C-alpha cells in the first residue's frame, strides 16, 4: 500500500488566520505574563522584579477602590439588566402587532457607539443644562449633582428621612449610579433579544397543558418558563458580567476631570490599568499585572457560573 504524503492543503487554508491569531493574540497573551514580572515601560524591558507588581497591587489603595467600584457596578448592573430584559422579552413575546417595531426601538442603543452616547448622557446629567435635573424640577424635586456627586446613593436616600448614614455604608456614589444607568440602558436591547429568542424556543404545548391543568400565569412562569430558559439566563448572566467588568468608555468620557472622579468613586479597574499603563507613570508592567488579576477574577466567576449551571440542570 502506498503511504500517503502529508497533505499540506489544510494548513495553507488555516495559515492566514493562524498567523494573525498567533502573532496578535496568543503572543500578546503569553507576553502579558512576562511583562508583568519585569519593570517594563514604553522604552522597553527593565530588570526582572518577579512578583513585585502583584505585591504592590495588594497595598495600593487606588487598586482596591477601583476593584470596589467595579464590583458595585457588576452587582447593580447584572441583576437589574437581567430582570428588566427578561420582563421586556416576556412582554414582546406576548404580542404580535408592532413586535418588530418595539424590538428595534429597544435595540438601537446596542448598535450605537459608546463614545457618542456617553457624550449625550454626560450632558443629560449636567447640573445646569441637563435633562435629568429638568425632569426633577418639573416633578418638584430638588436638583441633584449627578456625575459630580461623590456621596453614596444609600447615604443620599437615607438623608431624605433625616438618617445620617456613615460613609462606609453609603454605597456606590451617585456618579457611579449614573454610569450604571447608562450601562444598563446600553445593554438592555441585546439581552432582551437573547431572551426573546430563548422564549420563542419554548414549545407552546407546555403552556396549553398547564392551562388545562389550571396553573396560573405566575405559576407557569416559575414552573415552565424559568426552568426552560435557564441556559439563556446563564448566557446573559455570564456575558453581562464579563462586559460589565470591562467598562471603560463611559468612565473615560463621562466622568471628571479628572477621569474617575469625583474623589475616585467612578474609577473602575480597566480605567485604572489604562491610567497606570498609558498615563504619566507609563508603568506597562503594573498595568499588565492588573489586567491579569482582572482576567483571573472573570475566569473564576465564569467557572463558578458553569458549575452552578451544571447543578441546576433540567
Amino acid at each position, binding site marked *: 500500500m502506498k503511504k500517503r504524503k502529508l497533505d499540506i492543503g489544510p494548513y495553507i487554508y488555516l495559515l492566514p488566520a493562524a498567523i494573525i491569531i498567533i502573532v496578535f493574540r496568543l503572543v500578546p497573551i503569553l507576553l502579558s505574563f512576562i511583562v508583568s514580572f519585569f519593570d517594563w515601560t514604553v522604552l522597553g524591558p527593565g530588570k526582572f522584579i518577579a512578583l513585585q507588581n502583584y505585591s504592590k497591587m495588594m497595598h495600593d489603595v487606588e487598586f482596591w477602590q477601583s476593584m470596589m467600584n467595579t464590583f458595585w457596578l457588576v452587582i447593580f448592573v447584572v441583576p437589574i439588566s437581567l430582570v428588566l430584559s427578561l420582563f421586556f422579552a416576556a412582554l414582546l413575546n406576548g404580542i404580535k402587532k408592532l413586535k418588530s417595531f418595539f*424590538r428595534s426601538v429597544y435595540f438601537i442603543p446596542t448598535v450605537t457607539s459608546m*463614545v457618542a452616547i456617553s457624550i449625550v448622557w454626560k450632558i443629560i446629567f449636567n447640573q445646569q443644562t441637563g435633562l435629568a435635573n429638568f425632569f426633577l424640577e418639573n416633578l418638584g424635586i430638588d436638583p441633584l449633582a449627578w456625575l459630580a456627586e461623590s456621596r453614596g446613593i444609600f447615604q443620599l436616600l437615607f438623608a431624605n428621612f433625616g438618617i445620617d448614614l456613615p460613609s462606609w455604608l453609603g454605597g456606590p456614589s451617585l456618579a457611579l449610579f449614573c454610569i450604571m444607568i447608562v450601562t444598563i440602558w446600553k445593554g438592555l436591547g441585546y439581552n432582551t433579544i437573547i431572551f426573546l429568542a430563548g422564549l420563542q424556543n419554548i414549545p407552546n404545548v407546555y403552556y396549553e397543558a398547564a392551562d388545562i391543568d389550571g396553573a396560573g400565569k405566575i405559576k407557569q412562569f416559575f414552573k415552565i418558563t424559568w426552568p426552560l430558559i435557564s441556559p439563556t439566563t446563564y448566557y446573559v448572566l455570564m456575558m453581562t458580567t464579563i462586559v460589565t467588568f470591562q467598562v471603560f468608555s463611559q468612565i473615560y468620557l463621562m466622568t471628571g476631570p479628572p477621569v474617575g472622579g469625583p474623589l475616585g468613586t467612578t474609577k473602575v479597574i480597566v480605567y485604572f490599568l489604562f491610567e497606570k499603563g498609558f498615563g504619566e507613570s507609563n508603568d506597562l508592567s503594573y498595568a499588565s499585572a492588573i489586567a491579569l488579576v482582572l482576567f483571573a477574577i472573570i475566569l473564576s466567576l465564569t467557572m463558578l457560573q458553569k458549575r452552578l449551571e451544571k447543578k441546576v440542570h433540567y
Partner: protein
Amino acid sequence: MNLKKSISFLILSVCGLVMVIPFLWMVTTSVKSQLEVNKGNVGFLPIEEFSIYSEGEEEYRMTLIKDEGDSSYVHLFNENMERISSYKKIPNSSIINKRQFKFHFNNFVVAFNKVPFGRYFLNTLFVSISVVIGVLITGSLAAYAFATMKFKGRDFFFYLFISMMMVPQPVYLIPSYVLLNHLGWIDTYNALIIPWIANIFTIFLLRQQFKTIPRDLFDAAEIDGCNRLKILWKIVMPLSKSVIATAAIFGFIGSWNSFMWPLIMTDSPEKRVLQVGLSYFSQEASAQTALLMAASTFSILPLIILFLIAQKQIIASFASSGLKG
C-alpha cells in the same frame, strides 16, 4: 385578554420612550443655539426668546444694556448677528419681545468643520471595510479547513482558538502595544487593521455553517474536477450567504464602534478614527453642548441608517450569537 395586551403595549410604549429619549433630546438639542442652552432652555423644543427693535420697516436684534424706564441703551445686530450699533438709546415702546421656533442646522456644519471630521469618517470607513474583508477571507479559509478537512492538529488549533476567545481585551492590550511599538506600527493604519483581520468568533460561526453543508455536494464537485478552492468559492460560499452577512455585520459594527484600541494605538490627528476624534472633540468643546450633540448625531447616523435598512438581519445576527452560549 384584550386588557392584558393593552397593558403590555402601554408598558412597552412608555419604556420604549425612555429608551429613545436620549436620542430625541440629542437631536433637538443639536439644533438649538448655544445661547438658548446656556439660558436654561433645556426642554425638547428649540424655542428662542429674544427682543427686537423695530424702526419703521427695519427690524434689528438687540441686547439690552441699561433700562431707563421709558427708554433703553441697547446694542443692535443685523441678521448675521454682527453688531452694527453700540449703546444706542431707543424708546422702550419700539421693543418687541419675540418667541419663535428656530432650528440651527448650522450647528452641524460648524461642528463638522471645527475638527477634521471628514478625515475621521474616511479613516473609520477605510479601517472598518478593510477589517471586514480581511475577516471574511481569513475566516472562511480557516473555517473551511476546520469544517471539511482532516489534518493533524485540527482539534488542537480549534480549541486553542476558542479558548483565546475567552480572554478579555485588557489582557492583551498592553502587550499588543509593546509588540506594535516594536514593529514600528504605533500610529499607523497597520495597527488598526492587521491585528483585527482574523476573528475567532467569525471562524467559529462559519465553521458551524460549513458543517451543515452535505458532503455529497463536495464529492460531486470533486468528480466534476473542482479543486478545493473552487468548491469553497462556487458551492460553500453561495450556500452560506446569510451567515457571511452576519459575520460582516458584526465585523463592521465592532470595528466602527471600537474605541479603546485606536485610542491607545494612534497619536496623530491624521490617523484618528471617528470614535477617537469624537472623544477629543468632546474635551475641546466640552462647554458647547449644541455642537457636541450635533457631532454625536452625525457620528451615530451611519450605523442608525444601516440598522434601519437591515434591522431584521442585524437583530437576527445578534440573537444567533446567544443561542450557542
